[in-house]
């Protein structure tokens, strides 16, 4: 699978890369929404995993832009705490699934399989 990961915290990127590459997935990582968008414009992905709380443009903005660039692409949201507001906004943007941080490798893999 070709997966795009958007998160401002390098340790999350590092963790995801460690888990997903071990499973043989192909990864692109972006530290900002703009960077993520440029990836999306250039290539297509099987899945995007994005954080919500980011400085500047946040995860919702990322999902919106992704929705324009790659409308069919499933989106997995990583968030520190799943709140109703997040769920509501995510639903309106067509989020596929959610995963709460912190997570174990198994939890992440299960979430990806579900998508």
């Amino acid at each position, binding site marked *: 699978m070709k997966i795009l990961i958007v998160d401002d915290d390098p340790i*999350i990127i590092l963790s995801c890369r*460690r888990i997903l590459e071990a499973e043989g997935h192909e990864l692109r990582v972006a530290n900002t929404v703009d960077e993520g968008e440029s990836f999306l414009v250039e290539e297509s992905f099987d899945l995007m995993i994005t954080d919500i*709380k980011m400085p500047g443009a946040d995860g919702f903005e990322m999902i919106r832009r992704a929705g324009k660039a790659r409308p069919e692409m499933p989106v997995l949201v990583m968030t*520190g705490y799943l709140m*109703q507001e997040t769920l509501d906004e995510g639903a309106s943007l067509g989020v596929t699934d959610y995963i709460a*941080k*912190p997570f174990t490798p198994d939890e992440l893999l299960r979430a990806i399989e579900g998508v």
Partner: protein
Amino acid sequence: MGLPFFKIHSLRFKLIASMISISLFIGFISMLIGVSFLYRSVVNEAGARVGQDLNVARVLYDRQIECVRLALELSASTPSLADALSSGNEAEAAGALNAVALKLNPDILGICDSQGRIIYRHTAEIQGNALNAAPNPLVVKALESQASAAGSLVMDNQELALENPELARFASIRVRENPEDAEAHPHEMTKALMVGAAAPVFSGGRLAGVIYGGFLLNKDTQIVDKIGETVFKNEKYKGRSIGTATIFYQNLRVATSVKDSSGNRAIGTFASEEVNSRVLGKGEKWTDRAKVLDEWYITAYEPLTDIMGRRVGMLYVGVLEAKYNDIRTRAISVFVKIILASAAIAIILGWLITRRIMAPVSHLIQASAEISRGNFTPDIGPISRDDIGQLQRKFLKMTTALKEREESQKAQSEIRLIQSEKQASVGKLAAGVAHEINNPLTAVLTFTHMILRRTDLPGEVRSDLETVASQTERVRRIVKSLLDFSRQSALTPESLDVNSLIQESVKLLENQALIKGVSLSFRGADDLPLFTLDHNQCQSVFINMIINALDATPSGGKISIQTRKASLENAKGVEIKITDTGTGIAPEHMDKLFDPFFTTKEVGKGTGLGLAVSAGIIQRHGGSISVHSKLGEGTVFTIWLPMADNPE
């Protein structure tokens, strides 16, 4: 302080004043009635007595006449007088008459022959026959009737002068006070009012002559003084005789014991016009109060008639009214004294009684002032045994109730304040920390688990790594709880059946209960309406409550959950009771139950956030949680949730 005291006193003064005014009113009325009644009865009594006194005076007056008649009859019956008269020996006749009649000492005394000619006068010379031919009416009557005659008669000055010139001069009275018809009364009154008698003298069965005699009443003191002496015993009142007697010629005082202002007998003064017309004019007897000179008397008058039956004068007795007025004044003063004394007693009694009544009342008033200042244990003084006592007891009850309410309110609001402050600050901190911790935790979890995937790990390293993994899991749980606790998110309310919501939670925990050997039962009321609740949040509340109960209840214990309709402070709603037979909660822990991080559970077993979160959730639903627990017996948590359509 000044105000309530003033009020008490004014009330007290009102009570006393009303007591006084009642006693004064009653006293005054009884004085009016009593004094006038007493006075009237005294005056009536006095009037009756004066009437009787007048009768006595009349008897004395008549006796004077009778005396003259008896003396003359006695003289007439002397044979020497009869012989002398029949033989015409005038000198002898005079001697015989004088021997007897002079003992009487009359003012006039004389002898007529059988033809009515006066042949002898004791105190005057006989002056010619012409003048002798005018005998006085007594003689005329005695001659006509050939029997003795006696009574009052009026002589004019000339007639009297014939009888006794000196007496005629003495009899003249100076009129001192002119009544309206001054013309009718000359200044010098020369008529003489007399009493006298005439007795026929018989010689051998034939009328030989008549002897006559009499007393002048003008300026007489004998009769009136005798009346004063006999009737009034010469009683004095303030130096004056109480009783007075008067003989009137017409309406002029000719003999009297009434004294004028200078202390002389009031001879020559007139009776009042009213008396005059009633007694002299109509011939009535008169008994009433009347003014005699300047003084009021209770008086009785009656007419005097002469021997011809003409009203010629009046007889009067009177008693000084001043004496009776004195009785009145004395009675009034006694009454006034009684009234004043009773008013004084009323004041004292009123003071004492009102103090007895008002003391507890004033205590109460002070006490209520104290209460309004926040002192709920005011001194209300000793409890009295009457109605006020009941008031005092009620008041005490009220103050204790007030005190309890105030205290519980204070405690509750304090708890609420602290709790909400705590929750707010802890919540913020927790949320911040949790977010920061989440990312590093992700890395720790990731790499630990990635290492653990390797199959070539030595056993020791694996077990160490597993410890890291499990402890990281624990941190994850704590952080999740913290975030749960700090979550201030809005509710996602939906219409829910409370019973089925609880049923779901019970289902989730049934296995756990079964393993622990605790019976978990739920009985829902079937008349509950739908409630508007956040499904997940409410479920987390129920789950935490049931887990708490399970944790506290040993094997063999019971957990029962019930719902029922219940109102709280007039708001309709549902009450959910979670009852366990567990360990109970130590009283000293009661206060802290809802504090975040308060737990009695082993390290790692409980974060102490369950109830803190639950309280927040229920609060946001507009409901409340209360706890009743008995150490060693069990605990009841009661959740109350309001119905959606409660009027605010």
